């Protein structure tokens, strides 16, 4: 399921003059996400990615491109490899001894599985938000500034923390209690804190693994609004088992079915209204789940 826009890009990635490139891309990225996705750049491009846990294959030959500044949702029944694929993007699967990855995965043209890539350096360019909120037992300020501290980034940390909390729609609620422990916030607030923490170091992509599944409906809808806003600045890839959520907030949707197979990947409206594959239609209409 490759995007047409990819053909433009394979040519340009060979061009060494990055400066020229940025001018061209500025034009394309100013296109809002509601425009035809053919003009969007590709940020993450997977080619024949397969994953085994010991002898069991969890992902079958996944090829897809994730466009910039859009929300790409990955849906499917549980155990179909959506989280596994997500964790390939920032090589978090490396931390699992039993996992074995094959294939190529390019982040902005560089294959993250190349031998010369340092996974730690890679993860500093990609943000991740987990299923259950996991703020550190530190103050709210220290939580958000954590990424800046470990990368020893320059800049005014106070301002970056404020910006990140504002972008995560949490600033107003905590601006007077930045010293308070992150664990004292409610579940929904903790998850927004984790989002602020993830965006503070300005990542290329934000990966979200079922970010609202542990939250109550009010908090869930707050997170969903937030995700749509985040796509204006960042590229968001979200795994969700909640189909309606995917329909609500994503621009593109990938459907994973049993055995780690990517069955269809297209614009969200197409997937939900008129999917090509019968299996996808059966899944969407709830014939199995």
């Amino acid at each position, binding site marked *: 399921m490759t995007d047409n826009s990819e053909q433009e890009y394979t040519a340009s990635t060979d061009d060494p003059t*990055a400066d020229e490139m940025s001018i061209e891309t*500025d034009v394309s990225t100013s296109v809002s996400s509601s425009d035809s996705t053919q003009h969007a750049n590709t940020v993450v491009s997977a080619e024949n990615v397969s994953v085994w846990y010991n002898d069991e294959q969890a992902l079958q030959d996944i090829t897809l491109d994730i466009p910039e500044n859009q929300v790409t949702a990955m849906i499917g029944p549980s155990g179909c490899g959506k989280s596994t694929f997500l964790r390939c993007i920032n090589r978090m699967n490396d931390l699992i001894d039993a996992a074995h990855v094959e294939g190529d995965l390019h*982040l*902005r*043209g*560089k294959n993250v599985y190349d031998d010369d890539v340092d996974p*730690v350096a890679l993860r500093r360019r990609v943000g991740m938000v987990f299923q259950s909120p996991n703020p550190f037992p530190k103050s709210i300020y220290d939580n958000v500034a954590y990424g800046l501290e470990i990368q020893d980034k320059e800049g005014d940390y106070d301002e970056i923390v404020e910006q990140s909390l504002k972008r995560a729609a949490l600033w107003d609620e905590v601006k007077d209690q930045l010293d308070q422990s992150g664990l004292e916030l409610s579940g929904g607030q903790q998850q927004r804190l984790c989002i602020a923490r993830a965006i503070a170091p300005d990542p290329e992509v934000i990966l979200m693994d079922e970010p609202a599944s542990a939250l109550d409906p009010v908090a869930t809808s707050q997170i969903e609004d937030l995700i749509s806003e985040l796509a204006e600045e960042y590229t968001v890839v979200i795994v969700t088992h909640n189909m309606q959520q995917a329909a609500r907030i994503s621009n593109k949707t990938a459907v994973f079915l049993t055995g780690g197979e990517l069955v269809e990947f297209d614009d969200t409206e197409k997937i939900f209204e008129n999917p090509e594959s019968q299996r996808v239609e059966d899944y969407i209409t709830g014939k199995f789940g």
Partner: protein
Amino acid sequence: MATREDVIEDFGHVSRTAGTVFRYLLLAATLFGIVALAVLLLYVANDAIQPLTADPGWHLTFFLTLVVPTLAVSSYLFRTDPVSFRFGASIVGLLAVSTMFAGGMAMIFVDIVPPVVWFGYVLALCLSLAGVVVIERFDRQLPFLARFVAAGAIVVGAFAVVPGLVQSLPVYPTDDILLTLSFGAPIAAVVGRYAAADAGRRGRLLAIGAGVVAIGLGGVVGPLLGVTPVPATVILSLAVVPTAGYAAGIVRRHPARRSGLVLTAVVLLGAFGGAAAVDALGFAGPQSWVDWQFLTSAHSGDAINAGLYPAIGGSILLMVTVAALSFPLGVGAAVYLEEYAPDNRFTRFIDVNISNLAGVPSVVYGLLGLAVFVTYLGQPTGTVLIGGATLALLILPIVIISAREALRSVPDSMRQASYGMGATRWQTIRNVVLPRAFPGILTGTILALGRAIGETAPLIMIGAPNVLFSLPTGLSSKVSAMPLQVYAWASLFASDPFYQAAVPAGVVVLLVVLLSMNSVAIVLRNKYQSDSQ
């Protein structure tokens, strides 16, 4: 936010040098204590055993008969069949440790408890058990209390009457036959059942019979090898037969592990063969301070003749007393706290209390023993009874805490299943919880006993004698203990000869006993953990 690059050539690299240096520093710190202790152990072993004073021929012989074959077989097995290797090695270890404990047990039967007396008590036990079983058959006709009282009467009666009766017999069989019947037979029964568990009734009876016969032969075979009948019987019953039975049982269940026995055979043949060879070839062994004389003589002002025998006996008697006191009381308290106690302030108070008691210095427990048992209750100082009671109080909090851990590790779903079937609390505890938690409780108790064996201060406080010339024979005999004897040598008799000979030897014996106990506990715990997973 920064403008995004279109193309990333390189994600950059994060320096890991700080992390790597840190990792090696951590490893060094972790190994520091262990390596330091290992070095100290080597030093003291060298001082006590003096391996370098042996003839080169002695070293060479054992090298050829024991070391080389063992290494060869071990490395081969380890690479091709690790499970068999572990089995073979465990049999060797089991044999070594059990022989050591059997030696201690033999000491008890030789010098402390005459086999006749033991026989009498075992007979009483059997009779009272038989009586209790008969009474239980009437559990529909008689209420519980009546049965309880009747059973109690039978037990008390049996123990009061039978031992005296037996001892007053004009004629009775020789010591080793008595022991075979009363000590070896029960052990053979348990071992035989395990070894032949899948062979049906006849097979089991055969196995038990074989075990009893083997033990009985000890009285005859032993003297041929230079071992008197009673120790021979004890060693056979406590070391040889159980180990053989265990090995047989495992091999029947897992035939593939048979090859591990090759390792066992190589080690045993190498050791005995080497011993025979050095005897025949006349090579002198190391002039070790830890020798048979050291283990079997009493203290003497002359360092070279000083021995550890009464102290070893004292330690054994103390351990028996401590175990008898602390095991039921400690496990009982743990059961109450985990299974019965409601979650109120009183229970929490007991909790806090126990964890505080675990932190009280051992000297203070000694003071407690002194003030309560000696001064207040007027007992004579330094006896087995008050020594054992004081040490039992010392390790009671430890036993309670580890028993609680073991009880807590029983999944609640098992209890729920039992209660769901209408079982009472005691029924659940007895049938579901305790069996499952038993290995963990056993491990914790063994470790606690190991702590008690090594304690000196409380014994000093209750007035245990510094030097003892004869073996303690009963609960009210004065008692010494291994660490106490070593301390006395190191402080009261501190002089070069003692520090050269007696003290290192005593330290080595003490360490060997302790390390064996710790290893048994650790092996038990590992086996239990891997079984339940």
